[in-house]
């Protein structure tokens, strides 16, 4: 029984491909009704499916394909002209075939699904008889047809095979147990051989079909003509096919995971090499190490690309069904529309190919229904009555772009805005501040449809919303461009693969986050006074666009350790048609990251898409750009305001706060005494580590730090360089107080970022002077 299941599965895969092919061929045929080769190939598909399904006892499917075959056979022999009406019926029956195949896949049979083929069979029969009145019944015509075809076309022969298979079933009952056993063994073996053969070359479906037949038939004497058939058939098909093997997707996924680990290892190696290089600069072994590291890194990258490629499928897998779609649509909508496709060979990761089908269907429907005007309007506007929809795929950097363009009416931003206000999708205020591009984006809002009436095609206002969600799930961006009266262009930008991606690493306070690079549009460094506040939200005017700004640390409640400086970095992220400016504290760099799940326990955290392991072994979270955009609207950011509250605090000398770091109690006491007249607040720390902890804790805000150089645990130089790591303390005065007077010591002090270098012994006045100068103590306070 398991073998049977396997055969059925094979059948389903094969039939699925065949039907897909048939769909395409039929639409093609409508344009070239004279193409006999095309007709033949369509006929063969119907026939093959019929043959296999009858062998597997799928009676409904057999019946349906049988009738289709009738019509096609007549057309093939020029007894019937394919009119659009007949084409409609044939296409409809192809759809039914698909439905039946789906049912077989799910239920294992084609009878329970409730697909009613009677009606369509009748229509097919009528179509078949329409031109050939001599035969009253298509079933009757079948027999003679077969005989005629038999000599010319090999495939029809199977008809006989099927008959024999029925006879055979009876035969089995006469056989003894042992004989049955032997027979099964033999059949299994043959099946095995067939499989091996299949692996070697991807054979034409028909040939495989024949082989299956042969298994059953083998009891009988195999006819000579039968043997010839595959030989005759295969050369013309096999020559166009590449050598392929079928591999389970699961295995490829596993391979991909392993590569992911390797990429992480590579990143780690690069990082270690950097560290080593710094430490052993000029050593000879470095060169050798460099060679190894770079070759490992190169091979890893190549390997990754190679494995990625094994998972790639051409987009034609998805595109193939669109000619049919547009053909049906144009008939349904009574418009004359041409679909012009290019770049079908562009390749994409399998998982993505599976996901982009639906969105593109919606967008094409949208273009046909809303974009293209009816023929009359087109002529009035001086356009070709035939509308055109272009579907184009091409690579651009690490992304694939799918462009859907129509030469229709284009979109009117004002009309969209008014409509959206009417439907309550946006408020009039929002409409006011909307740019044209943003207005186009309205069409992706749930509940919005511009179609005057709801047709079967569109107008329910669901489709485009789904498009957006699907594209966002793939980390894609939608770009809309439209010119009133000339047409609309949608560009979908989608990353090539989902498992490994390029990311921009940014820091928010002391934490790091990875932003998918495909969603990053640009990064800018701005000064704080370029930020405006509109309606309680921060916005940034960038060229001719106004972007809302949100602080990454506000989105993710990052613990505040330090203030950002006057200049801030903004990462502009874009998803679908939305844009957002993300304020970060630092840009770390671009890195290739491998997405790891955080398990059930932490699944679905808003704003976080997953985690990755960085070169240093630490975990960095990957942001979910779509969710961040949603979160951003809930955050009331106050980027520019907080600065002002800071300024007002200091109105008496005691509001100024300095930290003295020295291991000697006496020295600390001397300094304190010297600074006492200033009236400022003084804290103490006995070594670098302690000082750093005090500073990091953020409990106190220091205006200056006096640092001794020689201290236990952490010396003054190290402390200074640690402090300078925080952007908040970039300008914090650090005053070195030391008895080291040599030039190189001073130089070192400047290197690590000391503001002043005071040598012992010093006069009290001198120290006071320097400190008050550095903390900008108002002169009046010195009394």
């Amino acid at each position: 029984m398991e073998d049977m299941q396997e055969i059925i599965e094979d059948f389903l895969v094969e039939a699925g491909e065949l039907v897909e092919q048939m769909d395409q061929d039929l639409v093609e045929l409508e344009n070239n009704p004279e193409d006999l080769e095309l007709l033949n190939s369509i006929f063969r598909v119907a026939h093959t499916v019929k043959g296999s399904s009858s062998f597997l006892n799928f009676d409904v499917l057999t019946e349906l394909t049988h009738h289709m075959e009738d019509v096609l056979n007549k057309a093939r022999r020029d007894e019937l002209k394919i009119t659009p009406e007949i084409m409609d019926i044939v296409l409809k029956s192809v759809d039914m075939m698909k439905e039946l195949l789906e049912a077989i896949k799910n239920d294992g049979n084609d009878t329970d699904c409730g697909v009613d083929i009677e009606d369509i069979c009748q229509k097919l029969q009528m179509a078949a008889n329409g031109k050939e009145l001599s035969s009253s019944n298509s079933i009757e015509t079948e027999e003679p047809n077969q005989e005629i075809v038999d000599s010319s076309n090999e495939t029809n022969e199977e008809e006989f095979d099927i008959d024999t298979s029925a006879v055979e079933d009876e035969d089995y009952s006469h056989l003894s147990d042992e004989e049955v056993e032997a027979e099964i063994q033999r059949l299994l073996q043959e099946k095995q051989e067939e499989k091996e053969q299949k692996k070697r070359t991807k054979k034409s479906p028909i040939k495989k079909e024949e082989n299956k037949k042969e298994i059953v038939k083998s009891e009988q004497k195999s006819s000579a003509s039968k043997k010839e058939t595959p030989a005759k058939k295969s050369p013309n098909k096999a020559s166009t096919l590449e050598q392929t093997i079928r591999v389970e997707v699961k295995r490829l996924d596993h391979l991909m995971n392993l590569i992911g680990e390797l990429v992480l290892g590579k990143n780690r190696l690069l990082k270690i090499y950097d560290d080593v290089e710094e430490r052993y600069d000029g050593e000879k072994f470095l060169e050798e190490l460099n060679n190894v590291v770079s070759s490992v890194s190169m091979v890893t990258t190549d390997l990754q690309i190679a494995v990625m490629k094994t998972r790639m499928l051409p987009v034609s897998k998805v595109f193939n069904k669109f000619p049919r779609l547009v053909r049906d649509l144009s008939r349904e909508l009574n418009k004359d529309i041409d679909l012009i496709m290019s770049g079908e060979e562009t390749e994409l990761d399998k998982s993505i190919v599976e996901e982009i089908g639906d969105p593109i269907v919606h967008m094409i429907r949208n273009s046909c229904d809303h974009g293209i005007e009816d023929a009359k309007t087109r002529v009035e506007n001086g356009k070709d009555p035939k509308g055109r929809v272009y579907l184009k795929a091409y690579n651009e950097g690490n992304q694939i772009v799918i462009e859907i363009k129509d030469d229709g009416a284009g979109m009117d931003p004002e009309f969209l805005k008014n409509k959206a206000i009417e439907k309550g999708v946006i408020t009039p205020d929002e409409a006011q501040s909307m740019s044209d591009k943003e207005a186009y984006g309205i069409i992706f809002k749930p509940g919005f449809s511009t179609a005057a009436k709801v047709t079967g095609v569109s107008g329910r206002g669901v489709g485009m919303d789904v498009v957006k969600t699907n594209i966002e799930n793939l980390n894609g961006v939608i770009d809309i461009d439209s010119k009133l009266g000339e047409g609309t262009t949608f560009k979908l930008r989608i990353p090539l693969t989902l498992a490994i991606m390029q990311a921009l690493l940014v820091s928010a306070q002391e934490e790091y986050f990875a932003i998918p690079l495909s969603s990053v549009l640009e990064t800018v460094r701005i000064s704080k006074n370029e930020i405006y506040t509109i309606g309680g939200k921060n916005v940034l005017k960038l060229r001719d666009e106004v972007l809302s700004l949100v602080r990454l640390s506000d989105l993710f409640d990052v613990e505040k350790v330090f203030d950002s400086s006057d200049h801030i970095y903004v990462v502009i992220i874009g998803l679908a048609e939305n844009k957002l400016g993300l304020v970060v504290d630092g840009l770390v760099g671009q890195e290739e990251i491998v997405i790891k799940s955080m398990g059930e326990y932490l699944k679905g955290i808003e704003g976080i898409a997953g985690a990755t392991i960085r070169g240093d072994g630490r975990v960095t979270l990957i942001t979910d750009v779509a969710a961040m955009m949603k979160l951003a609207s809930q955050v009331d950011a106050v980027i520019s305001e907080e600065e002002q509250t800071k300024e007002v605090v200091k109105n008496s000398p005691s509001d100024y706060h300095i930290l003295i770091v020295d291991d000697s109690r006496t020295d600390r006491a001397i300094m304190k005494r010297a600074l006492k007249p200033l009236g400022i607040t003084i804290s103490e720390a006995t070594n670098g580590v302690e000082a750093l902890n005090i500073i990091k804790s953020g409990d106190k805000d220091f205006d200056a730090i006096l640092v001794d150089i020689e201290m236990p645990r952490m010396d003054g130089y190290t402390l200074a360089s640690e402090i300078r790591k925080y952007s908040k303390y970039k300008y914090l005065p650090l005053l070195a107080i030391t008895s080291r007077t040599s030039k190189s010591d001073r130089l070192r002090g400047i290197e690590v970022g000391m503001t002043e270098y005071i040598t012992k012994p010093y006069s009290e006045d001198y120290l006071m002077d320097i400190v008050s100068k550095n903390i900008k103590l108002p002169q009046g306070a010195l009394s």
Partner: protein
Amino acid sequence: MSEQLQEVLKKQKEQLNSSLLDKDKKEEEIVQLVGFMVGREEYAVPILSIQEIIKPIDYTRVPQTPPYVLGVFNLRGNVLPLVDLRIKFNAPNTEQSEDMRYIVIKDKENVAGFVIDQITEAIRLNEKRIENPPETLKNSNSAISGIGKRENSIITILKVDELLKRDF
């Protein structure tokens, strides 16, 4: 296929099954646990649910989670959640001590690290000495599977699947 052969196979299978069952029965009487301290209380989980026990390592905070979820950490290339049981069980947060450990606990699907104050010992406990949690605790804290009685102490036995279940 001959019927005799099938008969033989069937018998073999039955035998295998029954022997497995016997084994289970014997082991059911003694439960092996690993005990650990959280705050001042001693808890335990079945020894087989523990993947490993490691010294504290760096972790990364994850936003939008309750305070007891510290974040995620990297265990040899796997990203695992880290839960601080001391916060979760409202145990006084003692100073970071040398004995602090992460125990990595797994069930069929999930695995996560838990911060505890100290590992005590591996415990063999007769099943008869384990009682159901008192009624008052049953509702408020479903993570307790039983109370184990030992010579001079009692120990709270935790439900692994409850620990690993997301509850926020």
